[in-house]
C-alpha cells in the first residue's frame, strides 16, 4: 500500500475490522469501505465460528444434543436449553410438572439478566468507559454462582431434560435469589445514575444508529432491536409458552429507534425479569421436577414442529423434523443474532466509524449465535 497523494484525494479505502478486534464481540469480520471517517459500505463476513451445530444434531440422539444448545448463545444459555426442551416436548407430547416449569422460568430469567449484564459491560467499553464493566460483572458473579450451585456449570448449562429439569433447587438457591433481587434493583439505579444519565454517554448513543420498524420487519430482527424500534413483540407475551401467562410483567418498548432506545429496553428488561423471578419464587409449588416415564432414548413420533422462545437477544426458534428414530432427521436453529446482524449492512450506510460501533454494540451480538 502506498499512500501517495493520488489515492488520498476523494477515493474510498477498504479497512478490515476483525476478525480479531476489541469491539466485534467474537470472531466477526466487517469489511468497511470508508470515505474518510464515513462508511460507504460495511459488509459483515461471518463463518469464523461456524461449528455445524445443525449437522451435529443429525449425529446425536435428542438427549445427547442438550449440551450443544447451551453453546450456541453461551451468554444466555439457559433460555436456549428451554427452547430445545420445549420443541422436543411439543413434538413428543410430553408434559412438564408444575414445579419444573417454575424452576425453568426462574433460571431462564436469571440467565437473561446475566446476559444483559454481559452485554452492558462491553457496550460501554466500546464507547470508551472502561469502568462499568467491573460493576456489572460483580452482579453477574452472583447469578453465575447461583446457577452453578444447581446445575454445575457457570456458563454453558445442560440443566433441562425432556419433561423437566434434572436437579431440584434447594433452599440455599431460593434464599440466594431472594437476596439478589433487591440488591440488583439498587444496582440498576446505580447504573442509571452512573451511565444512563451521563451526558457523554448520551451524546454517543442518542440519535445514533437508527433502525426503523420497516427495516426490522424486512430483515426479521427480533428482541430488543425490534422493541427499541417501537414494535411491541415479545414471544413471552405474543406467543406465550410454559407458564409465562401466569406472571405479571411489562414489555418495555421504546419508539426512538436509536441505540439509546435499545439500551433502555435491555435495562428495563432486567427490571421486569426481577419481577418475574420474584413472583415465581412466591408461587413456587412443591412436587416432582421430572415427568414420569420419559424414555431415556426418546423417539418422538414422525412429524415436524417449530417452537420459539424469547432469548436474551431475540426470538430463538427451532424447527425439528423427526422420522420416528432417536436421532433427529433435521434440526434447524433460527438464531436471533443472525437476523439482527444481517441488517447491519443497510443500517450503517453513511454513518461515522465511531457511531457504527455504537450501533454494533447496541445490536448485542454473540457471534457463535450468528454462525452456529
Amino acid at each position, binding site marked *: *500500500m502506498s499512500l501517495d497523494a493520488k489515492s488520498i484525494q476523494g477515493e474510498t479505502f477498504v479497512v478490515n475490522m476483525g476478525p480479531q478486534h476489541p*469491539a466485534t464481540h467474537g470472531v466477526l469480520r466487517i469489511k468497511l469501505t470508508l470515505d474518510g471517517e464515513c462508511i460507504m459500505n460495511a459488509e459483515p463476513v461471518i463463518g469464523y465460528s461456524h461449528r455445524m451445530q445443525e449437522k451435529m444434531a443429525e449425529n446425536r440422539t435428542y438427549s445427547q444434543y442438550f449440551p450443544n444448545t447451551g453453546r450456541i448463545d453461551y451468554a444466555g444459555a439457559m433460555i436456549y436449553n428451554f427452547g430445545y426442551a420445549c420443541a422436543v416436548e411439543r413434538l413428543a407430547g410430553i408434559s412438564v410438572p408444575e414445579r419444573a416449569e417454575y424452576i425453568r422460568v426462574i433460571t431462564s430469567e436469571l440467565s437473561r439478566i446475566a446476559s444483559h449484564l454481559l452485554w452492558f459491560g462491553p457496550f*460501554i467499553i466500546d464507547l*470508551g468507559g472502561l*469502568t462499568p464493566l*467491573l460493576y456489572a460483572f460483580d452482579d453477574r458473579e452472583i447469578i453465575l454462582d447461583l446457577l452453578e450451585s444447581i446445575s454445575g456449570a457457570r456458563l454453558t448449562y445442560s440443566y433441562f431434560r425432556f419433561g423437566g429439569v434434572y436437579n431440584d433447587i434447594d433452599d440455599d438457591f431460593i434464599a440466594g435469589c431472594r437476596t439478589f433481587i433487591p440488591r440488583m434493583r439498587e444496582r440498576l439505579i446505580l447504573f442509571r445514575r452512573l451511565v444512563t444519565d451521563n451526558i457523554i454517554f448520551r451524546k*454517543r448513543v442518542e440519535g445514533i444508529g437508527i433502525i426503523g420498524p420497516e427495516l426490522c420487519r424486512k430483515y426479521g430482527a427480533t428482541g430488543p432491536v425490534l422493541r427499541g424500534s417501537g414494535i411491541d413483540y415479545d414471544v413471552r407475551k405474543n406467543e406465550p409458552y410454559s407458564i409465562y401467562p401466569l406472571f405479571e410483567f411489562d414489555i418495555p418498548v421504546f419508539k426512538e429507534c436509536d441505540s439509546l432506545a435499545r439500551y433502555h429496553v435491555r435495562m428495563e428488561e432486567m427490571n421486569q425479569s426481577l419481577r418475574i423471578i420474584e413472583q415465581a419464587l412466591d408461587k413456587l409449588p412443591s412436587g416432582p421436577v421430572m415427568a414420569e416415564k420419559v424414555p431415556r432414548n426418546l423417539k418422538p413420533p414422525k412429524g415436524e414442529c417449530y417452537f420459539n422462545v424469547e432469548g436474551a437477544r431475540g426470538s430463538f426458534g427451532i424447527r425439528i423434523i423427526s422420522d420416528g428414530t432417536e436421532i433427529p432427521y433435521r434440526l434447524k436453529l433460527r438464531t436471533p443474532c443472525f437476523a439482527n446482524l444481517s441488517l447491519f449492512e443497510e443500517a450503517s450506510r453513511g454513518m461515522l466509524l*465511531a457511531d457504527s460501533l455504537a450501533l454494533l454494540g447496541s445490536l448485542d451480538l454473540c457471534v457463535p449465535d450468528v454462525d452456529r
Partner: protein
Amino acid sequence: MMEFLSSEPMRLLVSLVGIITFVALNAAYLSLLERKESAWFQRRLGPIEVGPLGLLQPIADGIKLAGKQIILPEGVDKILFKISPVMISVPVIMNLATIPFSETIVARDIHLGLLMILSFTSFNVMGIMLGGWASRNKYSVISAARVVAQNVAYEIPMFLITIALVMVTHTFDLRETVLLQSGGFWNWNLFNFGASPLMPAACLMFFLCLLAETNRSPFDMMEAESELIAGAITEYSGMGFGLFFISEYANIVVGSCLMTILFLGGWNCPFGLFPGLHWFLIKMYCIIFVVIWIRWSFPRIQFYGLLNLSWKIMIPLSLAHLLLTCVMVKIW
C-alpha cells in the same frame, strides 16, 4: 573545588540529570499510579505481586520493554518510523528544563519560558502524525488524522488563555508568574477576578485543553482502543512503544506543572505560611490524580463532538475572556 561544583556548567549538568531522572521516575510511577487508581475505582486491586504493594512493577515493565525486539514492519518509512518516538519524547524533557519547582529549583530560568513550553508542545502532534503515517497501517493513518485535527483545535484556546494571562502578569517568565501569586490563595490567578471575571472558567478550559493535548480520555482519539486498537502507535514495539508511553506521562506532568504555575500559585502555600517545593508537588499530583480519575470515569466523546466543543464553545469563550482581560487591564 566548591567553585567547580557550583559553577554554571556543573549546575546545568546536575539539573539535567535531575530532570531526566524526574521524568523517568514520574513516567514509571505514574503508570503504576494509574493502574492502582483505576483498580480501586473498579473494585479490584491492581498490581500487588512485584515488590511490596506492587511498587517495583514499573521497573519490571521497563526491563520487559527494554528487552523486547524492536520490530520494523516491512514497507514502513524507516527514517520517520524511527524518528517519531524521539520527536515526541525529547521536547517534553526539554520543557521541564524551564519549569520552576520552587524559588531556587529551576534548571534554566528563561525569560520566555512560557513561550518555549507552548511551542514545544506542538511537537507532540507532529511526532504522532509522522508515526502514524510511517506505520503503513490504515488504522494508524486514521488515528493520525484525528490527532492532528484534535490537537490543532485545542491548541488555540490554550494559547488564547495564556495570552490573556500574560497580559495580566506582563511576563513570559514562569518564575515571575509564580512570584506574582505569592501570599494566600486569594492571590492565585485562579481567583484573579480583577483580571477577568471569567478566570475560573479559563482555568477549567485550560484543564480541558491539557486533557486534549495529552490525548487523555475523554479526548483520546489517538488510541480509541475499541475502534482503532492502539491507533497511531499500533506498529511500535519494545522501546519505541516505551518512549511513547513515557512521553504521554511526561506530557501530563508538564501540563500539570504548567497549570499549577499559571493558575494555582506554583510553590506558594494557600495560606502564605511555608512556601516551597512540597506545595508545588502536592498541587501537581492533585491535578494528575484528577486527570487519571477522569479517564476511568467517562466514556469517550465522539470526534465531531470533540471538535464542536473546541471550535464552537471553547474558542468563543476564550476569545471573550481575552477581550474582557484587555478591557479590565486597560481600565485598572
